[in-house]
């Protein structure tokens, strides 16, 4: 008598033994009343199951074909491969229940996969028999379509995007490079190469190229056109293979450019003074009249309807020293930046001390400049106004300059650095002069980044591990040279394949 779970007395039930009806050995009774060996010798549950199979394997990308078209990436004797093999042996499960499956080790180059399966099946009288079953799969090697295409022509591109900007500097492309890196817009590009006034991106499919063009048109004002060229043609199935080309032209107006608006455009924008400064380029052009503090935005389509070129660009900026400043109006916020009209007395730095050339100008940098500051601006002193019936100012001040203070810190490494795209640089006809020019432009771009937090908005900056903050930095604490807040810096991602080294190797500076 035993106590059951609820406290009841349950009489003990010992199972007796019977003789196997075939061989007479004593055993515990089961539904068939035959011992296991007799049952196994009479009943083979793996009778109709497949013992051989074939699998197609691509040696290049190490994937296996799941007919008709899917290729599944799997390593030898891995879990994915086991799942794949069981899926191929699916008809098996119609008759028996699979309890356990595992690989039996085979030599990697034997081209055989051995699977040991344990299956269960119901036999006569409802007894469930379990048996192990060996399946041998033969591996056939065959290149998958993607690899065969890659092998046949490794540089095969089917869509190209030609990005061009017809200006003499490459600032836009430095900036775009960082944007593209941050958003990963060019991860699908097979190749990137540098051209005279721009970049070429090559893609494997038209949709990738279209996506890239959409991304670019969202960050800079562009106009684009696309063309296609027939490469091959299958008349029977009516399949046409094309090479698509997208020609994307970026608007030549850049930040801090001085623009003289054509009369039609000026009128369309509400008689905005023909001399305007471009303050910001995003997918539209932001223009600011420095003498009236009026601003306007030009959409990409608006701009390209009546395109105009810049009068002077930031290469032609001249340094001035501010002698006196008289704020005229109150502070106005235009497009996120604060401006106020002021009268300033400035002198060219080259003239300062040598002669007495002083200019009195109106400027929009009223609350930024103080006497004794340095500013950069465009020198229009000796310019002819041509057929424009306006009074040209002597100087148009653009921004404050930190050049002097920079000179104190020159040669120091920055605490941050940028990554670069790896592109094929066309090294044929460029000389040393070009390279120096390029380096100077890059340095200016980095300075720009330091000065403008809004430029940094969409760019990823990485901590420079080689930077040691020296004692000079602490004494220069009161220095008002704008610098990067170190919290913004991203700790650089350490990848095992030495992306750091690749980075330096592929940098545009070399």
């Amino acid at each position, binding site marked *: 008598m035993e106590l059951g779970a609820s406290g009841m007395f349950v*009489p*003990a*039930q*010992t*199972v*007796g*033994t*019977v*003789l*196997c*009806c*075939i*061989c*007479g050995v004593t055993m515990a*009774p089961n539904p*068939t*009343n*035959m011992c296991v060996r007799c049952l196994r010798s009479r009943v083979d549950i793996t009778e109709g199951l497949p013992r051989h199979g074939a699998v197609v394997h691509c040696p290049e990308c190490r994937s296996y074909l799941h007919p008709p078209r899917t290729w599944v990436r799997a390593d030898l004797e891995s879990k994915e491969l086991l799942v794949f093999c069981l899926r191929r042996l699916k008809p098996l499960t119609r008759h028996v229940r699979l309890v356990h499956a595992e690989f039996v080790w085979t030599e990697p180059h034997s081209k055989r996969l051995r699977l040991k399966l344990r299956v269960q099946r119901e036999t006569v*009288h409802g007894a469930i028999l379990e048996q192990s079953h060996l399946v041998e799969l033969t591996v056939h090697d065959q290149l998958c379509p993607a690899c065969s295409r890659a092998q046949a022509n490794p540089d095969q591109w089917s869509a190209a995007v030609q990005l061009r900007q017809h200006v003499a500097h490459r600032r836009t492309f430095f900036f775009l490079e960082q944007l593209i890196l941050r958003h990963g817009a060019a991860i699908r590009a097979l190749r990137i190469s540098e051209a005279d006034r721009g970049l070429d991106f090559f893609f494997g499919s038209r949709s990738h190229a279209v996506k890239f063009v959409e991304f670019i048109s969202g960050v800079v004002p562009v106009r684009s056109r696309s063309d296609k060229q027939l490469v091959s043609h299958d008349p029977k199935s009516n399949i046409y293979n094309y090479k698509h080309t997208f020609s994307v032209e970026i608007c030549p107006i850049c930040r801090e450019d001085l623009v003289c608006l054509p009369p039609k455009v000026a009128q369309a924008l509400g008689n905005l003074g023909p001399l305007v400064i471009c303050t910001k380029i995003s997918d539209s052009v932001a223009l600011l009249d420095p003498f009236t503090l009026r601003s306007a935005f030009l959409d990409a389509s608006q701009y390209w309807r009546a395109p105009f070129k810049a009068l002077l660009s930031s290469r032609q900026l001249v340094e001035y020293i501010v002698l006196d400043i008289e704020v005229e109006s109150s502070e106005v916020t235009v497009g996120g930046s604060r401006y106020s009209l002021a009268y300033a007395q400035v002198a060219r730095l080259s003239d300062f001390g040598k002669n007495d050339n002083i200019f009195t100008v109106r400027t929009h940098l009223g609350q930024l400049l103080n006497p004794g500051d340095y500013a950069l601006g465009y020198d229009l002193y000796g310019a002819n106004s041509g057929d424009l019936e306006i009074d040209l100012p002597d100087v148009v001040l653009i921004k404050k300059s930190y050049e002097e203070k920079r000179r104190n810190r020159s040669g120091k490494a920055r605490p941050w650095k940028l990554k670069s795209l790896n592109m094929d640089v066309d090294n044929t006809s460029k000389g040393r002069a070009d390279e120096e020019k390029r380096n100077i432009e890059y340095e200016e771009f980095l300075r720009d980044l330091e000065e403008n937090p809004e430029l940094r908005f969409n760019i990823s900056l990485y901590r420079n591990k080689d930077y040691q903050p020296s004692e000079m930095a602490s004494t220069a604490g009161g220095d008002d040279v704008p610098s990067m807040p170190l919290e913004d810096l991203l700790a650089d991602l350490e990848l095992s394949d030495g992306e750091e080294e690749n980075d330096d190797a592929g940098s545009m500076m070399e």
Partner: protein
Amino acid sequence: MATRLQFENSCEVGVFSKLTNAYCLVAIGGSENFYSAYEAELADVIPVVKTSIGGTRIIGRLCAGNKNGLLLPHTTTDQELQHLRNSLPDRVVVQRIEEKLSALGNCIACNDHVALTHPDLDRETEQLIADVLGVEVFRQTIAGNILVGSYCAFSNRGGLVHPHTSIEDQDELSTLLQVPLVAGTVNRGSEVIAAGMTVNDWTAFCGSDTTATELSVVESVFKLREAQPSTIVDEMRKSLIDSYV
């Protein structure tokens, strides 16, 4: 001695025949082979009667009896009843009973002294069994099955029960029946013992699928090897010379 035979290609001989110590009932088959097998074994000793019950041939499962009497279900026709009364010896009381459970062979398992019955049998039927068959009646189950008449077969010398019967149950039954019991199978692992074989004190008939192992179990538990019909039927004569010969 145990014999292996078939009734019209079916191995369930216990369905188509009923064997006791005083008589044997056999179903009417298409050929005479079944009847001849019984005749060959039993002709000199006990009457072998060909019959049907209620027009059916499954007589083994419909009637229950021993050397004292025979119980028939209410489906038996008057002619069959009369035929049986005429054919069987006068000692044997043939009685038709009104019982809801009409497959008496499945509900009652008996030898000459004890009977095991279906737990849901009527009180009157139980009385009748005790009177007609002259036995002590116990309501029992075998390995959790209520059809005791199907899952066990016993004679005055031994018994064979369902293979899943636990040791404790076997002890209990053995105590009730006062005979040695063994759990086993007939007809190559079939658990329905009484349908697959029929047995009396000196002979047994099994289906032809019965394996040698099963047959040896049957012969050993029912003690058929040294059994002679004459010693049983005419009351045992204590004669050492006879047993030598």
